[in-house]
């Protein structure tokens, strides 16, 4: 349509929709530009497992006709989205990045995919992940593992590794991830983007290969809070009376935020740069009008112990047959993790679920006194991919798993840069089914700091990709 929009790959979904409405950009032009960028750079990032170029261009042509004819269906009409390869898209393999699933062709769309198609989104392809959303980077995997676009010697986090990396590389404005122990918020933090684990069961898990049934969540990832809200609208079927971004512009005045310091100050000790960045987040929130107070929850290790017992027990049930028949087809990190559940008793699983009940109560009690919680996300910046010991050390050093256990919505976003130029992050947690307030807090912090939406910073990432 026009050449008035430059750097198409860094446009947010909101900017894309505005450009379409003003006839300054067409879905075909944007989709072709993103495909060209992916073809040029994904050799270094390995975010995509399957780039579905032909179907995406066909969908873009249809979207272009519809938009020109005034039949715009939603804010995501004609906007490209890419999907973690654990979610079924009809006719495409759902590989879960595992040898075991390479021939697994989906016979139907998962409901989240149907919702995206109904919204008019362009499905660009399937994204890399840790094997079965559980393993980790390994040379044994059937396809290359994803790398962090900020520095490709470093990991992008996981398990939604491709979902974070694709956003940070400017391959796509929106991605879908899944989160059982932090798998949306981990890569969001390490890749400097926004990732939201919604309230448990808000987004359908049907057609998504399970890791742990009672902990699995599906959610949106984006380069801005507003885009995250719009993608959540679409993933939940665009209910006309509900807009998750309804309060994005309200600001922080009057909002009570509880800072859970003990997670990173005493339960675990975060890297000094992470701690300093969190203190700065607290200062900014206060300056913007929020009322901050310290909040105590159960110890972080108590949460993560219960979460891990439940996750391993449920994952064992999913994988036991393959572990008996095809143990060599798992990469080593995955095999060790899915095997762990074999060493749990039924009583230990029930005990963890009993602990879970009082931990949910503890978080609910805290959220009676404040509107939103703020915690550390990851305790460290991204490890180098060639430093297996550091990867193993930092993997459990996070405060995301508690909210898979309790089901509360939790969002991770950028809070600064380390001295080595890698993103640092913060986590905000909301009341169950109050994503509106959670997104309000995140949007106000985003406006005050401009960490995630600073185009100059993204240009630096582009330079590093060559």
């Amino acid at each position, binding site marked *: 349509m026009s050449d008035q929009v430059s750097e198409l790959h860094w446009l947010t979904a909101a900017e894309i929709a505005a450009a379409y409405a003003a006839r300054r950009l067409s879905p075909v032009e944007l989709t072709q530009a993103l495909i060209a960028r992916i073809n040029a750079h994904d050799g270094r990032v390995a975010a995509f497992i399957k780039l579905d170029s032909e179907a995406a261009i066909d969908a873009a042509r249809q979207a272009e006709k519809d938009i020109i004819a005034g039949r715009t269906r939603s804010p995501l009409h004609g906007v490209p989205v890419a999907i973690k390869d654990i979610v079924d898209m009809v006719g495409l393999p759902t590989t879960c990045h595992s040898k075991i699933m390479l021939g697994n062709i989906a016979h139907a769309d998962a409901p989240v995919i149907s919702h995206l198609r109904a919204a008019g989104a362009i499905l660009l392809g399937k994204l890399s992940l840790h094997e079965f959303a559980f393993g980790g980077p390994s040379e044994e995997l059937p396809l290359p593992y994803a790398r962090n676009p900020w520095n490709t010697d470093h990991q992008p986090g996981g398990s939604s590794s491709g979902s974070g990396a694709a956003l940070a590389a400017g391959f796509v404005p929106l991605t879908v991830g899944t989160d059982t122990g932090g798998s949306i918020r981990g890569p969001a933090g390490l890749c400097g983007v926004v990732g939201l684990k919604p309230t448990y069961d808000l987004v359908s898990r049907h057609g998504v290969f399970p890791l742990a049934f*009672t902990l699995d969540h599906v959610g949106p990832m984006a380069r801005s809070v507003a885009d995250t809200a719009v993608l959540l609208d679409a993933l939940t079927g665009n209910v006309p009376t509900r807009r998750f971004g309804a309060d994005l512009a309200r600001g922080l005045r009057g909002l009570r935020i509880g800072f859970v310091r003990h997670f990173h100050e005493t339960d675990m000790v975060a890297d000094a740069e992470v701690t300093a960045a969190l203190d700065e987040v607290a200062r900014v929130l206060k300056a913007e009008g929020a009322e901050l107070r310290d909040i105590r929850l159960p*110890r972080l290790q108590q949460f993560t*112990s219960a979460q891990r017992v439940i996750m391993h027990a449920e994952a064992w049930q999913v994988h*036991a047959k393959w572990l008996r028949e095809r143990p060599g087809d798992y990469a*080593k990190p995955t095999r060790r993790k899915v095997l762990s559940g074999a*060493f749990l008793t039924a009583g230990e699983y029930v005990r963890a679920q009993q602990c*879970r009940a009082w931990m949910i109560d503890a978080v609910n009690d805290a959220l009676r006194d404040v509107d939103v919680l703020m915690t550390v996300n990851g305790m460290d910046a991204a490890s180098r991919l060639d430093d297996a010991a550091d990867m193993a050390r930092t993997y459990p050093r996070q405060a995301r798993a508690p909210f898979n256990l309790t089901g509360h919505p939790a969002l991770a976003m950028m809070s600064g840069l380390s001295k080595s130029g890698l993103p640092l992050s913060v986590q905000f947690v909301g009341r169950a089914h109050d994503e509106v307030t959670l997104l309000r807090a995140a949007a106000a912090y985003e406006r005050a700091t401009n960490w995630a939406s600073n185009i100059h910073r993204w240009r630096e990432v582009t330079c590093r990709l060559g």
Partner: protein
Amino acid sequence: MAGQAPKLDAFAVARAAGLEELVNRFPDDVEAAAQAMANDLVELPENDVAAEPWPPMHIRPMPTGSAK
């Protein structure tokens, strides 16, 4: 965090679970997995044994007219 020794012989538990091939080919993975799980259990809090576990049991009413 201090680890805890696996409570039972890891190989015997794995064999009882039908993982004979895995025990023979990847014995280090069996030991590592058993140790990891033992470590995780150390931090699991003591609790009221009579407490209702999550998720609470819910039974949904049948839709009207669906009974046959």
